[in-house]
């Protein structure tokens, strides 16, 4: 029997969380070691998974996924009219989720760094942290839509507590806003889920019944097949019943885009992000920006692109417009931020705009670029938050106008800052360049690009220049010029970054450089899946 790799990946952290909680008070400080060991195992498992990823084809059928585990969770008879309801414990990865699993495992490990000497209630912190990790892994690996939704909702809880308990001064408000935004998004996703249950029934053989049964089952490996929709079903593509000028399927896609767009976030739904990023502690900021934002984009890919290809084909230009608007709007906002963390938060929004732009280009290159941008942004943003944490730890402030000339006392910190700033605005040679180039290629050759005549792509390019401007300007103000820190009680003798920080940052730098200079293996791992996804869009979408 094959090792249930994905189950280990998903439930390992849950077990770790229980262990952390169960530690006696005397050994509370060892909970970080528990977390560290669990996460090392996670990274190891994710690396194994990643190494075989190029064999995954994704989307079409169960056999195209790797390490599939399928167990019937429950089957329920709903009577003559509704048939059976079935939910599976169905895990599997393909080239879309596999790289993200590896990224998530790595970032959870890296984010342990700033939390290493957590003083307040370490057992609770690390058990919640591990719960969050497990939920993220679950959301990335599960292929049953209800399971995915459950994991996606479950992870809001530990995140809320982690922000609200261990954050900065305005943490409660930030956490509440995060909760409100995310849950209102979830409501919309939930409606879509219900609608799908109402419109899909797959003929299946159930273990408890005799003969073929009509089963309502949101199995993401089969859901794409249009023959599984009842012709009169709510979200069937034959159902032309328009509601305020839009067929129900269109409404469903819209709801999905809004619900997941809040998580990505796309611009009108981004209100929670700057606050949450600023108020959360550094390790949680890393997880928020590096992992949780990606889940939104992943969800869009998996559910939006996988279930509503026809709608995607229709509304891709609109999404692309919102993405480019995000890029420019967030870029302009980042230009005038005075808080370094806030600046990075807005930069994150701009970067996620590139992800959505690549996704909505509906071309191989663009969609590969989107996934690549997720990886790249995850790594870079983790490093950026570590650097800002370093600045804050040493000077007691994150305010740009209170800092000057830090390069004088902390040359290593400054060097890493410059390198990662460059990586963040996509200097060639770093991973961001490959990602942005792929995305822009997609944007220039997308089918909607002809009518827009490349305008969106050029605006996105302006966003890159804006990124260069705000990062280099911030670098100039914080790290260059004469050394002083305003409002400091005394002249602080600034220490340069210490060994573990150098180790973590150079590890991240190495990854970013490898991704930027030799993208072949990672692109190869995701290419087959993305290509299948694209074919699928055009076969099912246009019919």
């Amino acid at each position, binding site marked *: 029997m094959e090792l249930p790799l994905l189950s280990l990946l998903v439930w390992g952290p849950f077990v770790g969380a229980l262990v952390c909680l169960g530690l006696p008070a005397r050994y509370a400080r060892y909970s970080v070691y528990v977390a560290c060991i669990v996460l090392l195992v996670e990274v190891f498992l994710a690396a194994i998974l990643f190494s075989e990823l190029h064999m995954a084809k994704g989307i079409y059928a169960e056999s195209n996924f790797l390490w599939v585990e399928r167990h019937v969770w429950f089957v329920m008879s709903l009577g003559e009219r509704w048939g059976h309801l079935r939910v599976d414990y169905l895990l599997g990865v393909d080239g879309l989720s596999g790289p993200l699993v590896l990224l998530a495992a790595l970032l959870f490990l890296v984010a342990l760094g700033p939390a290493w000497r957590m003083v307040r209630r370490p057992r609770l912190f690390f058990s919640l942290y591990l719960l969050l990790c497990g939920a993220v892994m679950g959301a990335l690996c599960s292929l049953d839509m209800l399971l995915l939704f459950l994991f996606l909702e479950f992870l809001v809880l530990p995140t809320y507590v982690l922000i609200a308990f261990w954050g900065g001064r305005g943490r409660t408000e930030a956490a*509440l*806003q995060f909760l*409100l*935004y995310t849950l*209102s998004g979830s409501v919309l996703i939930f409606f879509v889920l219900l609608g799908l249950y109402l419109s899909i029934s797959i003929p299946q053989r159930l273990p408890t019944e005799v003969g073929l049964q009509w089963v309502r089952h949101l199995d993401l490996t089969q859901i794409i097949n249009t023959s599984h929709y009842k012709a009169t079903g709510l979200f069937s593509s034959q159902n032309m019943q328009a509601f305020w000028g839009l067929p129900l399927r269109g409404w469903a896609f819209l709801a999905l885009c809004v619900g997941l767009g809040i998580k990505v976030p796309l*611009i*009108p739904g*981004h*209100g929670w992000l*700057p*606050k949450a990023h600023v108020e959360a502690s550094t390790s949680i900021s890393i997880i928020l920006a590096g992992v949780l934002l990606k889940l939104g984009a992943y969800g869009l890919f998996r559910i939006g692109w996988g279930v509503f290809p026809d709608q995607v084909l229709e509304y891709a230009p609109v999404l692309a417009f919102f993405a480019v608007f995000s890029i420019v*709007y967030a870029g*302009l*906002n980042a*230009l*005038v*931020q005075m808080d370094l963390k806030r600046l990075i938060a807005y930069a994150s929004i701009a970067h996620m705009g590139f992800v959505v732009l690549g996704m909505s280009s509906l*071309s*191989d*290159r663009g969609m*590969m670029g989107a996934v690549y941008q997720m990886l790249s942004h995850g790594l870079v943003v983790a490093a950026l938050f570590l650097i800002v944490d370093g600045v804050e730890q040493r000077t007691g402030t994150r305010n740009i106008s209170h800092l000057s*000339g830090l*390069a*004088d006392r902390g*040359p290593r910190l400054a*060097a890493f800052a*410059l390198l990662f700033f460059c990586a963040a605005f996509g*200097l*060639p*040679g770093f991973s961001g*360049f490959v990602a942005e*180039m*792929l995305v*822009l*290629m997609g944007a*220039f*050759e997308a089918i909607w690009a002809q009518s827009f005549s*490349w305008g969106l*792509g*050029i605006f996105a*390019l*302006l966003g*890159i*220049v804006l990124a*260069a*401007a705000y990062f*280099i*300007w911030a670098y*100039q103000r914080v*790290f*260059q*010029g*004469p*050394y002083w820190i305003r409002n400091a009680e005394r002249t602080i003798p600034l220490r340069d970054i210490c060994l573990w920080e150098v180790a973590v940052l150079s590890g991240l730098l190495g990854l970013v450089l490898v991704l930027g200079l*030799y*993208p*072949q293996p990672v*692109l190869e791992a995701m*290419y087959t899946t993305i*290509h299948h996804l694209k074919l699928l869009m055009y076969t099912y979408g246009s019919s």
Partner: protein
Amino acid sequence: MSDALKTVALYGFALAFLLPFCSFLWHVCPQRGRCRGKAALGFLIMAGVCMGGATGLWLVYVEDPNIVPVSWIILPPALVIRFSVDFSAPVLILCNCTLLVSCWVHMYSVDYMKEDKRLAPYFAMLGLFTTAMLGLFVSGNLWSMALCWGWIGICSYVLIGHNYQEKGMARAATEAFLIGKVGDIGLWVGMLVFLVISSGLDIETLQLYFGDSFKQQVSGFMVWVGLFALCFVWAALSKSAQFPFQVWLISAMRGPVPVSALLHSATLVAAGVFLLGRLAFLFTPWVREVLLVVGLGTALTAGLAAYTQVHIKRLLAYSTISQMGFMVALVALGQVAYAFLYIVLHAIAKALLFLATGIITQQLARAGLQKSEELSQMSGLWRQMPLPYIASAAGAAVLLGLPLSAGYGLKEYFTAQFWGYGGWGLPVAGLALLSTGLYLGRLMGYLFLKKSPQVAQSSAWCLGIWQRPWLQLPLWMGSFCCLGVGYQYPKIGGKGWLWAGMQEVSFALDSWEVAGRPIGLTVLSWGSVGAALLAAGYAARERPRPHLGNLGYRFIHHHGYLHWIYERIYRGIHRCARIMQRVERYSLAPLGAGLAKGLLLLALGTHFVDKQGLSGGLKAAARSLYRVGRRADLLTKQHLPRRMAWVLFFGLCLLWTVLLLFYF
């Protein structure tokens, strides 16, 4: 035999590229003791030797195709990107020139920057910059070109901002970097567009696609190709500091002298012209016209601006801009080989001028004779500083194209080209040449020829130079390179090796026909020499001016006040960002809070209605109706908050009614 030699030569090239990079790695790693830069110099000299040897082997023995492809991303059919390396003769000559100038700068820095505290990062960045520049020259593919292009930008940012503690220095570096970044958009858009309309970004492939045969076949599409090629022109103009981008070069002058000598001679600014030359086959006639207008216009205006400068480094900066204009004009005329030749000669001459200037200012500052770098404060130095005098004279001679100097033949050809082009080009080019003479003469006249009682008083301070071999060596070598004998132009007899090598430009294109070279042309190129003599004579007798002259003079001096326009643009963007921030703060950010508050209000309202209206039944409803009537009567008499509450209440009632109606 040839294969073995080829392998040896390839290893030589590999070493030549890796050694500057090793210098970078060496200086990045923590070292015991203080960095003195000797290691970097060693690496660079070794790289230079390897490059020289390999070039010799390659050009003499290897006649294979020069392009070596290396695959980078292979995902057919979506994406296939190969890097390719082009080792044709002109490219190799440019590489050698870059390494030569880089070696000089390293030597010079070892002594010149001696007292600097942050030498390790300085030399590290010099090494990285040199590597990136070499990579740019040899890359036969726009992908690798963009890679090196980006790294050149960031390295120059760090190098220009080396003394970031000083006031305004960091800002100058940022400005230079960001203007370069704006230029990068052009490169990226161009790459993306050409990727979409053709299959790859190999320069060879592009030439096959859009070369001469293509132009004759589909002339309608060429309008578009020209338009897209304008993107590359945009990028190249920004790197080569042509109109309207030249502002960055002036602010970049604030960097250390050796950095200026490297950046503004063989490397950073040359990158733009190099890109133009590589992609010259894309340029349709009207694009070339644009290039010609921009190049000659910049050459003339920057030449005049240089003449009006009082600050020695600014004079040299404007001179660089002007010379770059000549190169761009040469590309516009289709003479890529001459443009590349111009890069080499200008690099040597300009590096020499910068290095000499550095010695002069440093020595004067050490002697406590002057603080600023203003021309009026240094004069009559030829007796005290013979070596910088010789070096500057050699550099100026090359730029002027004096006979027996390296620049002579080139200048002859340059004027001949414009004679052939005819029209407005000839007078403008002639005027630009004259302005070259003017500012060089002014420089020489002020620095060396003018009598200065202040300096003559003491002469002991100037002797220090003779004890500093690392400062001397580049000047001697550079002065030697400025001699024309070594290159042997056709004027002097036979085609010289440098000229012949440049003629192998595989990407040259049809040029405007040159209709002979009447002897009258020489008058033009001699005119600039005359102008130089005049200006030198004038400068030698000119008294330092307290103020700048009239409006026109000031306009030329500030080069059309472009920096002011740029300042406006920065402010505009900043203001735009502020508006966006306000939008964010007052509309989108409170959305969440507003949502929460709205929910709360709705809940309170519902509770109120529930308590007051529904539970009390009809009687309560009647009572409340009565109360409502009275309240409505009182509404006008009550104070604001209570009135608002009532308005809110009615609003809620209305909202619920609408909701209920809609539901049923």
